[in-house]
């Protein structure tokens, strides 16, 4: 898809995010805004997938796991906008009885979700399971994941990282949302990740880097990553992003990690984000 069109979709996704969290005064806008460009490119340009009817097993489909489940608003918006369920359903976000739970879940059968996430650090392991089964099934499609940088403080991530290289899992592309922020502050202050690139390389991963707000660069890096599949090594992309990207008063701070804008702030935010596809 043309980059201009992807940018238009990402703008609408950002509008959806701030409207969803503001409507229920609850949710995580900061990280969601920061990953809007990436998830838009992934779902509208990179992945081979069939939104409707949704198939849990995803045979011969690329499969995505959101490991940092708290940025559910961006995922829900991208899923709806790419045809998994009606965009009007976004209005149910975090409301009683809705399929759009605060953190993604399978029990309400929201199309597009294959695994609950929220408790951090588990998505890479789940992705490894799918990657192994795709190999068993001679299914040549790819497994994608997204993780927060703070999430990398969970030990299970490194169990999975070790497994992936030792067992030559080469049909998987993990992406790290490297925004440098977590709830309590800057990742560097809370618990530094040290040299993140060197860590992944030491764990045996092909490690790429990209600017998570440059649509052309996201597209080309994902193409580059896909070209390196099947070479006996797992692939990780360290994606530099800005928490709150697209809304000036949310950018550059961890304070909007898990706080919703009030009606006045919402109006301000929406004035900065072009309505391109029509609000839900």
């Amino acid at each position, binding site marked *: 898809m043309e980059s201009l069109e992807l940018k238009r979709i990402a703008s609408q996704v950002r509008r959806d995010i701030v409207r969803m969290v503001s409507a229920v005064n609850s949710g995580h806008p900061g990280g969601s805004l920061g990953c809007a460009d990436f998830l838009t490119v992934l779902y509208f340009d990179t992945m081979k997938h069939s939104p409707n009817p949704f198939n*849990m*097993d*995803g*045979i011969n489909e690329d*499969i995505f796991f959101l490991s940092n489940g708290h940025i559910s608003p961006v995922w829900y918006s991208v899923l709806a906008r790419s045809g998994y369920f009606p965009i009007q359903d976004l209005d149910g976000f975090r409301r009683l009885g809705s399929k759009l739970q605060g953190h993604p*879940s*399978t*029990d309400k059968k929201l199309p597009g979700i*294959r*695994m*609950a*996430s*929220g*408790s951090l*650090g*588990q*998505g*890479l*392991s*789940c*992705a*490894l*399971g*799918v*990657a*192994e*089964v*795709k190999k*068993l*099934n001679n*299914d040549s499609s790819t497994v994608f994941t997204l993780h927060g940088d703070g999430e990398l403080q969970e*030990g*299970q991530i490194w*169990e*999975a990282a*070790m*497994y992936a290289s*030792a*067992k030559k899992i080469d049909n998987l592309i993990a992406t790290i949302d490297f925004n440098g922020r977590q709830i309590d502050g800057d990742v560097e202050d809370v618990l530094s990740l040290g040299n993140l690139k060197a860590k992944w390389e030491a764990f045996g991963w092909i490690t790429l880097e990209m600017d998570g707000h440059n649509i052309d660069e996201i597209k080309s890096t994902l193409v580059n990553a896909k070209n390196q599949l099947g070479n006996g090594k797992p692939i990780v992309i360290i994606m530099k992003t800005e928490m709150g990207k697209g809304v000036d008063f949310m950018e550059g701070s961890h304070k909007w990690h898990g706080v919703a804008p009030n009606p006045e702030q919402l109006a301000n935010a929406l004035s900065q984000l072009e309505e391109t596809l029509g609000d839900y």
Partner: protein
Amino acid sequence: MIEFEIFGNKDTRSGFGEGLHELGMKNENVVALCADLTGSLKMDAFAKDCSERFFQVGIAEANMIGMAAGMTIGGKIPYTGTFANFSTGRVYDQIRQSVAYSNKNVKICASHAGLTLGEDGATHQILEDIGMMKMLPNMTVIVPADFNQTKQATIAIADYEGPVYLRFGRPVMPIFVRPDAKFEIGKADVLIEGSDVTIVACGHMVWKSIEAARILEEKGISVELINMHTIKPLDESTLLKSLNKTKCVVTAEEHMMAGGLGESVAQVITKNLLVPQEFVAVNDSFGESGTPMELMTKYHIDTADIVLASEKVISRKK
């Protein structure tokens, strides 16, 4: 005299290993994961003959559970194998989110449960696992009684769609379940029919209860013995039918009193009929090193304890 045909002596973990191998040879969707305890779990035969579907994950149980959950996507039936302690407490959150809440068709197979793990001591002797697992929505909890039943249960759970916790152990015990018996999830086995007291047991405690029933018979007490191999869902109708007859119950398990089989039985009683219950279980204590049989004696989950509890509960009947 209460008679049981005995089909030899073996450990329940070997029943798991044999069942998994037999299942793997006929069902290509079965995959198995192990966290560096292949020999202890008796998974060698599967690992050898179904090598493409065997995944050695190393000492990384959290990753193993997450991988197993992922493997259900695409139609596989994953069996995970490690000690009961590392199958539950160590990975509770992974099971809760990726298996139970996500309702994935994962079979969590746990060996060396309880005190009969023996000499390794309390770090490995988990006595809380049944409680942890039965509290999880969507989870089925099975504690088979002997080698044959463990093998049968291992095979049977592949035909059930949903998360299962299968608990078995290390010591060699008599085999009394018929090799051709059909295992049915949630359907208890009435091993002995009697009228004075109902003993409800699971796992290794079923054999201990058979021994107790023989001693009680010599004392003129008629025991009805139920092998409650499925803790969840509990076979309430078989239980209530028996309690309506005997009017008292002893529960016997190799588990903490809190959270175990006895607690599940007590819930059924308080909701349906008031009869006295005695608990043969570990009472709020960690274990220690020792031989399995020494530990069962010291922690009061032995044959003599079942006999005493039976006599006491009968005396409490109105």
